[in-house]
């Protein structure tokens, strides 16, 4: 019997998140190779927005019920665990996201399954699920095996093309009533929109991005000069923002902004997967990091291993001179 692959969809305000299509693309590959059925499970308060989507699944199962208005891991687990027990899939795909990471541990413990996080590739070989995942801040890849039937893989956003998560035509859609019985221990209250400061980093053509290599807040000044010279703005990775050196609205990455500027100048950034998610589609990426093994060089178009504190003033001077001369 073919056990099947299940994708646990993520959505917000009636729209499927990009990661859902990427998971479907991954699952489609697995399903086609193993001749498995592919089921996309969607938990929602209202099934209506999800009833006619051209998703690359064999079946869409919408579990509709109260308590699923916003994401509560408690509500999701109460609906998802019995549903997955009923489906008995060979492999469950979750997003390596705020939602998937909340579900993975409890889901594994309650289903007797094991998860691999940070997956960039998932394949089935016979009775084994083979996962390739990013480890140690993206510096290394791990290959690991899970037994079919108790395998959960958390897919890293950006690992599969979204387009392949769709197909021509709408698959069979079933809507089942689902209720998270009893009072919830985690209750979703509201969503707070980000406070934007003077600059919306999603809208400027050039971004000068600061990573841990910046070393101190005082060094932001020379980055700011450079950004002004280029008609752009300074943004940063999480560690820089966590230090309080720049406001949250300047953070680029998984839980920050997703940007696609014409030029992304990555300075002192190692290139953790969470950061790369937010900037990899920039037109031109130039990375400067003294560590030649930094993963940022795998997504950058151009790279250099000089010290950013030497480079930035020299670059600003040369740009000013070039501007003055034209």
């Amino acid at each position, binding site marked *: 019997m073919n056990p099947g692959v299940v994708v646990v969809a993520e959505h*917000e305000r009636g729209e499927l*998140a990009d990661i859902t299509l990427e998971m479907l693309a991954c699952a489609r590959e697995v399903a086609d190779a193993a001749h498995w059925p592919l089921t996309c499970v969607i938990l929602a308060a209202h099934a209506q927005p999800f009833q006619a989507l051209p998703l690359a699944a064999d079946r869409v199962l919408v579990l509709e019920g109260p308590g699923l208005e*916003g994401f*509560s*891991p408690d509500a999701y687990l109460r609906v998802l665990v019995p549903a997955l027990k009923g489906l008995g899939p060979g492999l469950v795909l979750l997003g390596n996201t*705020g939602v998937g990471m*909340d*579900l993975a*541990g*409890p*889901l*594994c*413990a309650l289903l007797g399954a*094991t*998860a*691999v*996080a940070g997956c960039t590739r998932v394949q089935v070989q016979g009775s084994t699920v083979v996962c390739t995942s990013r*480890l*140690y*801040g*993206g*510096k*290394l*890849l*791990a*290959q*690991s*095996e899970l037994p079919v039937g108790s395998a959960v893989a958390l897919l890293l956003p950006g690992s599969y093309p979204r387009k392949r998560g769709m197909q021509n035509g709408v698959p069979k859609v079933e809507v089942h009533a689902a209720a998270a019985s009893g009072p919830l221990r*985690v*209750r*979703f*209250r509201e*969503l*707070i*929109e980000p406070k934007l400061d003077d600059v919306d980093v999603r809208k400027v*053509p050039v971004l000068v991005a600061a990573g841990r290599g910046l070393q101190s807040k005082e060094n932001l000044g020379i980055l700011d000069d450079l950004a002004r010279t*280029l008609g752009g703005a300074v943004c940063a990775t999480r*560690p820089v923002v966590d230090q309080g050196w720049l406001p*949250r609205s300047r953070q680029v990455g998984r*839980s920050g*902004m997703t940007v696609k500027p*014409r*030029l992304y100048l990555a300075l002192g950034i*190692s290139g953790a997967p969470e950061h790369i998610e937010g900037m990899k589609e920039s037109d031109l990426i*130039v*990375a400067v990091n003294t560590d030649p093994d930094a*993963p940022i*060089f*795998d*997504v950058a178009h*151009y790279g*250099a291993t*000089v010290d950013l504190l030497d*480079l930035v003033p*020299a*670059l600003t001077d*040369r*740009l000013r001179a*070039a*501007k003055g001369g034209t």
Partner: protein
Amino acid sequence: MKVAVILRQVPDVVEELVIADDGRTLSEEDVMYITNEGDEHALEEALLLKARHAAPVTAFGVGGEEAKDALATAVAKGADEAVFVRSTPDARGDNASLAARLAGPLKTGGYGLVLTGVHAADQLDAGLGGLLAVQLAAPYVGGLTTVHVDVAGAKAVVQKEYAGGRLGVMEVDLPAVLGVQSAEQPPRYVSVGKVTQARRTLQASELSVPSMTVPGVRARALLRPESGAHAKMLEGDADHVAAEIVALVKERGLL
């Protein structure tokens, strides 16, 4: 209300990571250990809760001898109690067995909140927080930037990061396990002198529960990411690199 925080020692990814001869682990002699970054933030959040609610904080330091330094630092920062959880490199990143091992002491300890980093640098599996929550029959939510507890200590109001810089506000019944993404303020600094003093006077109890073997996942191979799409490297000194970047910027019409 008592607060527990788990401080895992993990390889510092800023250092060079050397793959051992077995091809699936790190070469132990080349590993530099640090406290997992998310766990540092969990400690900071715990200390903020202590300041606001006079909540005693117990730090569980997981790792080899270096975990004792992490505990001394935690005590110097304000943790009230230190528990050393001896762990060997072969158990590295195995959160399923760590959760099973910590479950008993965390249950009997009567903690209202257990804080962990939402993610660990050496994490291959589902992550400690969620696995631990099931063991403790407590709810779990992670990716948090703020944890506030009501006066009665019955529930927490937390903020969870969503994509696009948005924050979800959630209410969680206590006791609970929470995965901290980043604390409300940067982890506090404590002077080397204070740490040295704390190290000298540290009274860490050692967890008596031995390591457990539970079903989990192990890497069969560690690999360096394929450098198929590697950046074209600009050679020379800073000034030369600057000149090349200016040429690129001009070529793209960005000046």
